[in-house]
């Protein structure tokens, strides 16, 4: 799927190409279905992130996580000066973590120039490894939500706990399979998007579970 234009798609989405480059890329898109599809997928992950409600779950469970993530995220954004453009797989992975930040009210900590949260993934300037930061934020959020769930599990009935565990196991299995598939085919845009959305689904489920425990008290 890769060609000379593949790594310029994120710049195109952010309207950062020159007029000449933009025209050339648009002409290329007319002819290249793979790039058109990749561009559409990039649009989807960024739109999904940008469309999320900026609303924490009940019981303020999210605030603690967001605070912990803020320090890490601010470090990443404030020290930044070097231009960094995501490739397709990087954008997909970053978008998954970006969803966490946007949903948790932390997008402002990362935004540059008032852009929408979703666009940030493709255009923010970082010094470090942005995907590493995103993955780290994701891992931190999952661990924190899992810890909260473990601490409050006695507020849920056994049937609900069983369902949650079954669902988390199903999602973990899907994530593991998607990761393994990406080892075989790292440039596969579908696999990258699938992994990102499945990771997002796990956080969504954990947040939902945290809300359930909040309701039960």
């Amino acid at each position, binding site marked *: 799927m890769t060609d000379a234009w593949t790594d310029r798609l994120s710049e195109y989405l952010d309207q950062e190409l020159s007029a000449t480059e933009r025209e050339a890329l648009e002409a290329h898109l007319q002819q290249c279905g793979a790039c058109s599809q990749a561009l559409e997928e990039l649009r989807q992950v960024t739109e999904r992130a940008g469309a999320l409600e900026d609303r924490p779950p009940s019981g303020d469970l999210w605030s603690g996580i967001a605070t912990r993530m803020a320090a890490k995220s601010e470090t990443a954004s404030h020290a930044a000066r070097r231009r960094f453009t995501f490739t397709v797989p990087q954008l997909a992975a970053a978008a998954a973590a970006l969803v966490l930040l946007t949903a948790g009210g932390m997008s402002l900590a990362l935004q540059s120039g008032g852009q929408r949260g979703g666009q940030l993934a493709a255009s923010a300037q970082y010094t470090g490894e942005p995907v590493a930061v995103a993955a780290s934020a994701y891992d931190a959020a999952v661990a924190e939500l899992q810890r909260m769930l473990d601490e409050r599990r006695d*507020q849920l009935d056994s049937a609900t706990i069983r*369902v949650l565990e079954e*669902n988390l196991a199903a*999602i973990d299995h*899907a994530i593991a399979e998607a990761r393994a598939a990406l080892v075989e085919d790292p440039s*596969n845009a*579908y696999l990258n998007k699938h992994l990102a959305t499945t990771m997002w689904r796990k956080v969504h489920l954990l947040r939902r579970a945290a809300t359930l425990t909040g309701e*039960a008290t």
Partner: protein
Amino acid sequence: MLTHLIAAALLSVPLAQQTDTVVAVAPGARLDVHALGGEVVVRTWDRSEMRVVANHGSRDRLDISTSSVVARVRVKAYRGAPSAVDLEITIPAGMDVDLGGTFLYIDIEGVTGEVTAETVHGDVVLRGGSGVINLQSTQGSVECVDAEGRISVGTMNGSLQLRNVAGELTAETVNGSITVERASARSAELVTVNGRVAYQGTVQDGGRYMLSSHNGDISFTVPQSTNATMSVSSFSGEFVADFPVTLTETSAGGKRFSFVLGNGSARVELESFGGTIHLQRP
């Protein structure tokens, strides 16, 4: 532990008392019902009043309060946690509705206002209505029939069924199937992890449709006159079409490809990591 005790109490206490009352509701007021357990049935009539028929425990009382913006129904215990309650509530059709509970079965019919219904243990059924509709369960199934608008349904462990629906559809589950029949949707986003996803209905010009599963099969039924750009993606699954298609793009390995039906106006994405993607005619 608290939840275990409440669940046990809900199951053990008989419904011994009936309350039947009618109250006036202000135009534009929203119905707000939250009950720990039991059943809530909502029906409509052409009067600007709300009737509440409740079968509840003798140790409980019905608490109904109304204002210019909300008509609130609660069950309160004189002592301890309330027992299960069966509520049948009749309201003006255009009233917005917000229902919630933990061990609650929810049944709504004929409401044309905005509907939000959420339960943990129990099914949610909605018939009729238009506008914004949001139906969620954690361990139950959700069924939405004869409705139109921006419809969102979800569960963790259970099936999602939408029949004769129109508008913008969103359905999401983890361990469960999603079935959409006789749909006339401008857009549909149907996503599960372990389960089958099936869409049967019209594909509108300019519409967007996305069906995704990790392990389950995808079934998409397209009428003869469909104008759509179709994208199919899988990793280890298969693609089966009941009619000839001409591929316009194929990725390495042949697991990602696209093709055009008619003038290609709508966008359709069918994705299954490991399941079979089946394209068929009605």
